[in-house]
């Protein structure tokens, strides 16, 4: 038994015919080929698979792809604005908030959602806002520092800078 529907991801409607039991995470990675969303536990504990659904941060392992039908899904690949990094992406890069990078996409999704509802969070609000995303490399310090820095003066810049 399969189910056929369109799934909107990063503004693109993807026609799918899939087993209805498949998670959004599995479909994003396996069918649509957006592998920026990572699988760290498949158990809603690590946050590496976080995406935005209608702007809300959700662990994509926690729901079926079919449950996202008719809704707007944003993955890490949809966060970049053309060829410009978002302020959050640029900030993490500049302040050493990225090490191995595996938690980074989910972390950026959470931070994006946090700043959408609270543009000027305190360090403690940032700590709570990111508490659903495990990072084993950084100890969170540089990530919190990057996001706590006043983002106003941080101009968007080309994605390739720093490479």
């Amino acid at each position, binding site marked *: 038994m399969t189910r056929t529907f369109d799934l909107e991801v990063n503004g693109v409607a993807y026609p799918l015919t899939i087993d209805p039991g498949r998670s959004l995470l599995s479909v994003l*990675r396996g069918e649509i*080929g*957006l*592998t*920026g*969303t*990572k*699988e*760290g*536990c*498949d*158990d809603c*504990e*690590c946050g*590496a698979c976080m995406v935005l659904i209608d702007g809300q941060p959700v662990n994509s392992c926690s729901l079926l792809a079919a449950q996202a039908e008719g809704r707007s899904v944003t*993955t*890490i*690949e949809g*966060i*970049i604005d053309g060829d410009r*990094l978002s302020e959050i*992406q*640029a900030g*993490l*890069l*500049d302040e*050493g908030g*990225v*090490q*191995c*990078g*595996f*938690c*980074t*996409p989910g972390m*950026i999704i959470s931070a994006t959602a946090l700043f959408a509802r609270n543009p000027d969070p305190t360090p403690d609000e*940032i*700590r*709570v*806002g*990111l*508490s*659903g*995303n*495990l*990072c*084993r*490399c*950084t*100890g*969170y*310090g*540089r*990530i*919190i520092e990057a996001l706590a820095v006043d983002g106003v003066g941080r101009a968007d810049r080309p*994605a*390739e*800078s*720093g*490479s």
Partner: protein
Amino acid sequence: MAIAAESIDRRPRLVRADGPEKVTGTALYTADLRMTGMLAAKFLFAEVAHARITRLDVSGARLVPGVFAVLTAADLPDVRYSAGVADRTLFARDVVRFEGEVVAAVAAVTDEAARRAIDAIIVDYEPLAIVDDPEAARADDAPLVHPHWADYESDPSLVRHGNVAAFSSIARGDVDAGMAQADVVVAGRYVADGSHAAPIEPRAVVARWEGEKVTIWTSSQVPFAARDGVCETLRLPTNRVRVIVPHLGGGFGGKCGFHFEPHVAALARAARRPVKLVFTRREEFIAPDRRRESMIIEITTGVNNDGTIVARRGHVILDNGAYIADAAFFPQLAAMHVAGPYVIPNIEISAELVYTNHQPSGSVRAPTAPQTTWARESHTDEVAAAVGLDPVEFRLLNAVDTAKIGPTGQTYDEIGLIECIRRAADSAGWGRPLPDDEAIGVAIGWWPSFPVASGAYVKLDSDGAGQIITGAQECGTGAVMTLRRLAADELGMQPDDFQIVGQDTAVAPYDVGATGSQTLFNNGRAVVAAAGQVAEQLRNLAADRLEASAADIVLDSGVAHVAGTPDRNVSIIELAAIAARGELLIGHGSGQPPATPEISGTTCVGDQGMAAWVAPQFSCHAVRVKLDRDTGVVRVLEVDAVHDSGTIINHLGAVGQVEGGVMMGVGQALSEGTVYGDGRQRNAALLEYKLQTAADSPTVRTQFVEIATEGAGPRGAKGLAEAPNVATAGAVANAIARLTGERLRRLPMTPERVWEVMG
């Protein structure tokens, strides 16, 4: 003698070269790879701690639609492997010795088909006595994990007997006389639970054969060791096995060694298709032979009333688990940490690595150090209290320092431990009044730098753009930054002028990988040597062009000029274009690793070369905690981490290493501990095995005492990746003890345990 530290700190910070792809989601990790015709692999694990296989029937699995290959021990060469003791086979043969042992493997068109095939395998077990307690396992009549241990090939330097896989001791002076002479003798017994590396990326392996050659993409910290493991177990020459590591999602030691690359390569060969294995989180918890071992640590210290340590006796029991993996040197390393960075004239410390039916232990970030240091630094506060001394004063009095002789008879060049202690205490405000239920604890630590062989090539192409072709492995640590800086500085260029090509055993020279905090220390040396050859080529070309002596040519800011006359210059880009038409700009480098220092007066049984350390690193952590007396919950509020890791080449990256190591230490202190029942892990999931979150994260203030140690790595740099994970748990313990009064001698110091000692 020390040489002056070159301050590299003031230069513009290095931004991660691999950062843009990581923040945009385009960085590919092993599990992200997909290939035409690729199959999914699944393993059948033992799921029992100790049993004899009485029946293994895979015929049903072969009948499942979509299955291309089913493998058991019967299908592969009968090779026993492991460093130190050859105690292990790829698949279980007759007996399973821990729950994560691989019994069979399948490859099928989908994950679902592979799962059905695994379910169709019939395996019957006859239960065997579970060896669950490493202390009891040493008894003469204890059931043996490896009844044929004496027949295994092993390193002759290892002292083994029965369930004791390796015994080591360090002795110097006369401990009995020292204890007899001491004014006060303090003894303690400390028990640490095991824990996990827990990288956020579960491991993945992809293998694809072309003819008689196999390419393996794997989430390994040590691609050359992974290759060698495949070659040893599948009996292949090294030039037919190519191991490539895509982006690596953290390791922390958990992805050292070789693990499942041979299984997947064998599946791909049998299936005649590319095969991909991706572990679930539970599999990541139970199956790898890299786990931080549980320990029982006993320490007795004799001290004079003036606070001088006179003698120390210690004994450590390390839970090795079912197979030795890379743990053969752990007993002596643990013994070194029980001694600690203190001047102690009389020591006698022994340690036993004991087989059990638990998951094998192995290198996890600073192996043996967090547990032993937690115990020793807890004990140190108890000893200080016994003679009425302040913990910081006691450490300043007894810590090793420049020109002093350490516990194993090593005399130190200029080192910065005393300065680390002073700065940490100052920054934390040691001695200041604190709010109710808050306290500061202090602990010190040390860790060796590991000198090993390593290699790199550096080339400049026709446009002057550089490439560093290196065996080094990046796992979030910082090779992508420091190696580029070193090459750039040799050539008067900028880090951004270089790309790193590596993580590919067919392309780059040998390197041991991201292990032992060794990349900058050893591969840095190789890159400097390789870049130095290119620099010499450039100087010769420039000398011709500028009609000067090569010895007078200076490479700086992208040009070669004659010393003293910057106007007589030619750009490196121009020189590269000239070279492209003649002798190409290619350097290769390795360099001789520094020699191990001599020690005096120390005798070791089961010596594994750990009693003397090249370029040792030192640290002091001061931790302020808050205790909730109703619940026993401890929160770490602030950490001052001061490190002597020699010269710091990349300050931002170094701070990141320290903060990450501290946070891992906080987890070990408070929440991370494996719970066993019937020899099996009862909390092999991230809900039950609690990592620290952003909400738990303290403010960490990092400082570096930069002393360029002669005979260390490039420019006097030592290692750094593991050192930050040494002292934190001990400092947390000492803070907790000041609040509870009673000392908690169990790790992790969970709320339940803290609450219990509060009475």
